[in-house]
């Protein structure tokens, strides 16, 4: 149990602060110092660039650069670990899945080849035929197992084939994490607004940032409510897996009341938005202009874009 207490003890409070820091504390973050439009366009560009590479080495180099950027943008270490964990388990999944599927397919083929005999056996309910049918099934399973075990190699090869793909996905994920955690919501929505994105969408982003901490708190409170009124499984199982499963179930259940509470909150918000002249401002070009007036593209914005492109070109040429 001790690892569990350690886990729950570090997590909740620290995790919350860490996430808050990722999302809100971005005054020193490198990407936040550039013009938001430039950063947004740069992000789109770098969503495409990884797909132009096919070899592992340049992709690994790009990934390393992406991580460096993430570090400069103060991305939550928990988020990064979670991301990596996801990608690694995905790869691990392939190692297991490919042989397993191979085995299943062989076994099934074997079975269906003898299916008529099998059906006859079952329908007739004759012990001797049944025994024969049992033999057929056993043979099929054996065949399947054999294939599964012998195709380990295939699994590893499959992984080799998907590694670049996962690398590309990871690069994109890390970059977008870096961008969205480094840029303040005002800047993101300002940039988008100037690029012609509808106000409703940019408002939704800003509003999401406003509400997130509230929802995190509320979600936590709801989980606690559930915990205080539930019963822990009597046997915790190996490594407390039953207990973990129980916590997992609770954390899913807690979403339902959360959604109701959010719906209730939004009733007031919508009224308040009306009194703050939101719907009026949608058709008012002056309001849009005032919001985006103080943006400016400076040399350092441009040099950031060209610098990073130069880096990519270097990777392209030398690796």
């Amino acid at each position, binding site marked *: 149990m001790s690892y569990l*207490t350690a886990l729950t*003890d570090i997590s909740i*409070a*620290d995790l919350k*602060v860490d996430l*808050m*820091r990722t999302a*809100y*504390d971005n005054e020193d973050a490198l990407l936040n110092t550039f013009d938001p439009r430039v950063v947004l366009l740069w992000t789109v560009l770098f969503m495409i660039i990884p797909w132009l590479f096919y070899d592992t080495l340049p992709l690994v180099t790009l990934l390393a650069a992406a991580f460096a950027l993430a570090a400069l943008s103060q991305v939550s270490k928990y988020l990064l670990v979670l991301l990596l964990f996801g990608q690694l388990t995905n790869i691990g999944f392939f190692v297991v899945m490919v042989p397993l599927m191979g085995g299943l397919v062989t076994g099934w083929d074997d079975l269906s080849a003898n299916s008529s005999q099998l059906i006859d056996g079952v329908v007739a309910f004759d012990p001797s035929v049944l025994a024969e049918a049992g033999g057929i099934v056993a043979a099929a399973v054996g065949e399947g197992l054999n294939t599964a075990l012998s195709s380990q190699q295939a699994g590893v090869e499959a992984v080799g084939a998907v590694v670049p793909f996962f690398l590309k996905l990871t690069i994109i994920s890390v970059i977008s994490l870096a961008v969205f955690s480094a840029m*303040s*919501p*005002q800047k993101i929505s300002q940039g988008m607004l100037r690029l012609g994105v509808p106000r409703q969408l940019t*408002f939704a982003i*800003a*509003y999401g*940032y*406003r509400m997130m*901490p*509230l929802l995190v708190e*509320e979600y936590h*409170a*709801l989980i*606690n*409510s*559930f*915990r*205080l*009124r*539930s*019963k*822990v499984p009597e046997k915790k199982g190996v490594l407390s897996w039953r207990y973990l499963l129980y916590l997992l179930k609770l954390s899913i*259940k*807690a979403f*339902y*009341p959360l959604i*109701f*509470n959010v719906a*209730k*909150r*939004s009733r*007031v*918000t919508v*009224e*308040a*938005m*009306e*009194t*703050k*002249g*939101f*719907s*009026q*401002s949608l058709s*008012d070009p*002056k*309001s849009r202009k*005032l*919001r985006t007036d103080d943006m400016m593209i400076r040399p350092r914005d441009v040099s950031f874009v060209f610098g990073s492109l130069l880096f990519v070109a270097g990777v392209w040429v030398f690796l």
Partner: protein
Amino acid sequence: MSAHSIIVDDLTFQYPGGDESVLQGADLRIDSGEFTAVVGGNGSGKTTLCKTFNGLIPHFFDGTFEGSVRVDGTDTRESDVGDLSRTVGYVFQDFENQLVQETVRDDVEFAPLNYGFDDYEERATRALEMVGLADLADRFIWELSGGQQHLVALAGVLAMDPEFVVVDEPAAQLDPQNAQETYERLRWLHEEQDKTVIVIEHHSEFIAEYCDEMVLVSDGGVAWKEPAQVGLNRLDDLRAENIHPPQVTQIADAVPAGMATVSDGRYPVTVDEAETALWSESAQAGEKRSAATGTTESTSQNQSTEENTENDDGEPIITLRNVGHGYPTLREGYNQVLDGLDLDLYAGDRVALVGANGSGKSTLLRLLTGLESPDEGTVTVLGQETNDALPEELADDTVYIHQNPEEMFVEDNVRKDIGYYLKNRGADDVERRVEEILTYLDLEELADRDGRLMSLGQQRRASLGIGLATDPTVVLLDEPTGSLDLQSRREVTGILRKAESRVETVVIASHDLQLVAGWADRVIVLDDGDVIADAPPAAVFDDAELLAAADLRQPQVVELSERLGFDSPLLTTDVMVEAITKGTAPDVATSAGDDATPDTTVPNTTQTLREEQ
């Protein structure tokens, strides 16, 4: 002048899909320059009425709308919410959801930007200065306390420089200290900035202190509009709407006729008025009083001493030893909330935890549930150390009732919510026990409703039901009367008393001194992460310094008893009425007077009275 007013003329309104009209033939006129309170019972239509001022009704809620509302001469039907909001600002009761941007400045700038004002920055700066939040302009909304968030909502309204400011139940969601600050701010806006302030309010003591005019809404109509002192004297009307008159007015009403009236024959509504009224009256009654002096007061004192000794002998139910606890924060590093705290709670204790915001009341309660483990020291509840037990296990005997009842509703109706714990713990007669709780707390009618959609008072009652269904030994309540109108507050006190017959120890964290005064027998004052006082209520209320440290506001009756020169404070209106009528100091009041000997209390009063004369 006629242009600067809100005039409601024969207004009838029915929400779309509603069965009956919420407003029926309402007539009202509010002129520029007033500070007006709108009062009325739950569901009387007061919020609906105020939402017609800025056009939310009929533009946002398009129900059946008959009659008219004119704001500064404009018929609201011919304008829209956006335009009307520039004249009539509205701070919602649920103000937290009114703040839609992530930082304070952004939120205050939001409306001016929407209207395309070039000077949006100056407007925001000015508005923030008006509410005294200029220093916090760059903070995130979620970093602020409830009181500060309320001020941001107010600043957001002021940035539009409206003539009328409507504030919906400021005291409902704020603790008394913050509510008072908000009222001070509103008074300043009214007096110095020439704003017309309209508050929807349940707390008659705030009305007495701050408002000039008072409107009673009843059954969808405006029953009357009177100057506040006159309105607060219409006790029957108020009681019919479940509004409790100020404590001093209740006292004046309860004592024999003519004993406590101010010059024009009405009852006092503030402590100042009551003091004057009672001085002159008691001076006349002086002789009679001294004759009645000298009843025993030592009995209850002895009782309480006995109780204490008893407690010391018994095993404590809850023990905290050298407890330190804190949280990491975004800006200020590690925030040490509790520091080296020692505490023992015994069976039969009615404990009130009081203290300023952030003094660690809620943290302490959460440590007792085991939801959090102390960073240092040990917490033991019913012999079980919380570090070694899961919160689920501790919850067998302990129940924690959340400050915000909404967080306790996990099912879609109250009945299921109450049964949730029992079902999960495999109790055999779930249905019977749920029924029993429903009857016990008068929840039958609400049993099949969704807890989230009920009024706050009902929610609180349901959350107590959820708690009691677990058959707890220890009940922990976080701000049980927070955001409650007085009616529901009285209900809570009643429920607490009921609960006592079922449980051993009740601990509440509260800002509400009326509740503490009327219910607790042990008050623990927290400050700076440690216990700074642990005494019966009367002793705590006697110590002005302590109260200030704990951000507490004396109930009117306590303040009055102090001003009248009682040696130890009187805690409830009943006791005060008795004291005035009989001219004697009652038992309860003296339980805390450490060295008070019999006969001192009242003679002192009379003496002072005579000197005064």
